[in-house]
């Protein structure tokens, strides 16, 4: 295929997305928004996998992206179930409210 590939730019974009997601995990106070920021970080990693797979010319990176998506789906379902249980017990979604296990 003669298309121009944007491997380098894609890797830099993945870094930007990962950084934004990491920032969100630290700055947001809503548990669900924090989970969404984790999804953002996972997508940044996925983009890096795809770009490196394009650079290497092998498909192993793409298979890893597939598995990351599967694990992300499992993580999101269990995480959101935990959020529902937390909301039932504390009636809030503020991360600072869930500090029972604080040492």
């Amino acid at each position, binding site marked *: 295929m003669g298309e121009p590939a*944007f491997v380098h730019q*894609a890797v830099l974009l993945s870094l930007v997305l990962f950084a934004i997601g990491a*920032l969100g995990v*630290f700055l947001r106070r809503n548990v669900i928004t924090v989970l*969404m920021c984790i999804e953002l970080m996972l997508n940044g990693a996925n*983009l890096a996998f795809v770009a490196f797979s394009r650079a290497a010319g092998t498909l192993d990176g793409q298979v890893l992206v597939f598995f990351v998506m599967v694990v992300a789906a499992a993580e*999101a379902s269990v995480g959101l179930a935990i959020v529902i249980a937390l909301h039932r017990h504390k009636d809030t979604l*503020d991360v600072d409210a869930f500090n029972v296990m604080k040492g």
Partner: protein
Amino acid sequence: MDQALFYAAAALAVVGALVVIGQKNPIYSAFALIVTLCSLSVIFGLLGSPFIAALQVIVYAGAIMVLFLFVLMLLNVKREEDVPGHGGRAMAGVAVVLVALLAGQAGYVLWNTTLAPAPAFDASTRRMSEILFSPHFLYVFEATSILILAALVGAVALAKKDA
């Protein structure tokens, strides 16, 4: 043409990501995240990975984000309270500095490496399935089905009324 499409999708992805962390209302964050995921799908397509691009829309923008929106609406989430938490602004500053440090280091390395696309690259769905079901990845693939089943049972058990 491809160039313009790539930069448009990249800009849309970054703007969507910024809206995700800049929004007080989590529903808007979820919709902005869907925008980011769909632009990423465009970029996957431009990188020659149609299978991953399709999965991105179906699994991420479809299934996972519907789950998020479902929970957001089930719990009737209001805007985030504006009270600064324990640690408050100092912790936020530390977080910003740490993430900037990480991004700076990784960005420095990545900026100075040259990444050229491989000359021959075939990531068609046929090739993907051949690799996914080759002996190399077959057992991992089967293990993911157990993982999904465990997640399913775990989610039901956790979200049950009298858990």
